[in-house]
């Protein structure tokens, strides 16, 4: 294979209570992991601190809350701000919206995933982790239809199985894996693009 790398971007959906899994997933990625990572985590109403701030000391990557209009750059993970949808534009800048919640969620995993599928198509890797609803199922299938790679956390391992289970029931999933193996799969896929 030559020319443009197969993948360009990772999107992750995780429901409330997902801090623990994000801590171990982001903690397992090296600081030179090349692709930008966009994360929607459902936050509890009136929730306090931003996950980017809480997780910063566990991750080698740069973590930040997404700003409207900012271009995504490598080696950085962006979190949807509380109460805003996060979307990706075709010019690889981030967009926010205060459109109504999608099936009770704002930010919504589906909104992020569908926009990423539109923007980057086959270049997206979509991952659904633990969670207590079915957000992300439709988005994962949109990514798959666009030619991207779709991954669900092994429901047996997930703290709350409903979100990965819903994703698995909604259509074909390329990989159903425990968290540790998701991290190593990402590193393997990115391997050729990492300096050493």
């Amino acid at each position, binding site marked *: 294979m030559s020319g443009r790398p197969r993948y360009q971007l990772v999107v992750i959906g995780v429901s409330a209570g997902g801090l623990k899994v994000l801590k171990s997933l982001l903690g397992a990625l090296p600081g030179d992991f090349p692709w930008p990572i966009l994360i929607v985590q459902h936050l509890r109403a009136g929730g306090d601190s931003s996950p980017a701030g809480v997780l910063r000391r566990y991750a080698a990557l740069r973590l930040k809350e997404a700003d409207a209009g900012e271009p995504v750059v490598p080696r950085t993970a962006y979190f949807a701000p509380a109460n805003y949808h996060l979307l990706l534009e075709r010019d690889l800048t981030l967009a926010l919206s205060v459109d109504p919640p999608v099936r009770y969620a704002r930010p919504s995993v589906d909104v992020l995933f569908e926009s990423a599928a539109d923007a980057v*198509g086959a270049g997206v890797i979509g991952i659904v982790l633990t969670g207590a609803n079915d957000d992300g199922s439709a988005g994962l299938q949109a990514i798959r239809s666009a030619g991207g790679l779709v991954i669900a956390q092994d429901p047996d391992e997930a703290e709350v199985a409903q979100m990965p289970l819903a994703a698995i029931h909604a259509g074909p999933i390329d990989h159903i894996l425990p968290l540790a193996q998701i991290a190593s799969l990402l590193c393997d896929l990115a391997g050729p693009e990492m300096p050493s």
Partner: protein
Amino acid sequence: MTTDRLEEIELRLLLDGILAVYGYDFRDYAEASLKRRVRHWLQAQPFTTLSLAQNAILRDRAVFSSFVAGITVNVSEMFRDPEFFVALRKQVVPFLRTWPFIRIWVAGCSGGEEAYSLAIVLDEEGLLQRSRIYATDINETILDRARDGILPLAEMQKFTRNYQRAGGTRAFADYYTARYDRALLAGRLKENILFTAHNLSVDADFGEMQMILCRNVLIYFNRDLKNRVLDLFDRALTSGGFLCLGLKESLDGSSLTGLYPELSRGLRIYRKSYPD
């Protein structure tokens, strides 16, 4: 050709058509959200594709209005981001007091929630009688709703909580009357608000404003349109006037960077400098 690619072409053709026929320019709306809204609108229509809808949109004003409503409606709340209203009271009101007459533009006012919240603050600060709020939106249907000052009663609990956290000094229930499932806002709040149609992407500015509120509107625009609108606001504001944006919007990277110091970090209240 893929469906996605076709959809992009259809959307571009439609937006060109709308500009030519109606003079509304949606070409510089941020694409990702616009696409979602267009798809959402289309799902509720009898047309299977945007090309089929185009015929009706370009020929039938009622269908066009429904399309505009579908792609421009912004959801809002009364006293959304209470910390913003706290800062408004503490840091902006003292300056507003120094003007004999206060003109405020609420751009993209949607159902009027922001304009009415502002009217309440001005009322409590004793400034409403010498203020005039120009509340504008592109969407005529929603302006009718805003003029009526009617909100869903179910929302009032949340709005009351917002109001209290925003530093409200009275009982929020004094500002509305409950009628069945709706809340009717007090008539005196409406007296100094002028709701009127205005299209930020093509219309000229209103002049001599002491303050402009445009929160969570620019996030739906691309960089070009955002800059054009900010220039419009710059022309409309008097020196020393205030520009208030949404909490996730900023002037960084815009044509006004550096010219409008932020009053209180992170709350997106900017003040236009006086000329040297």
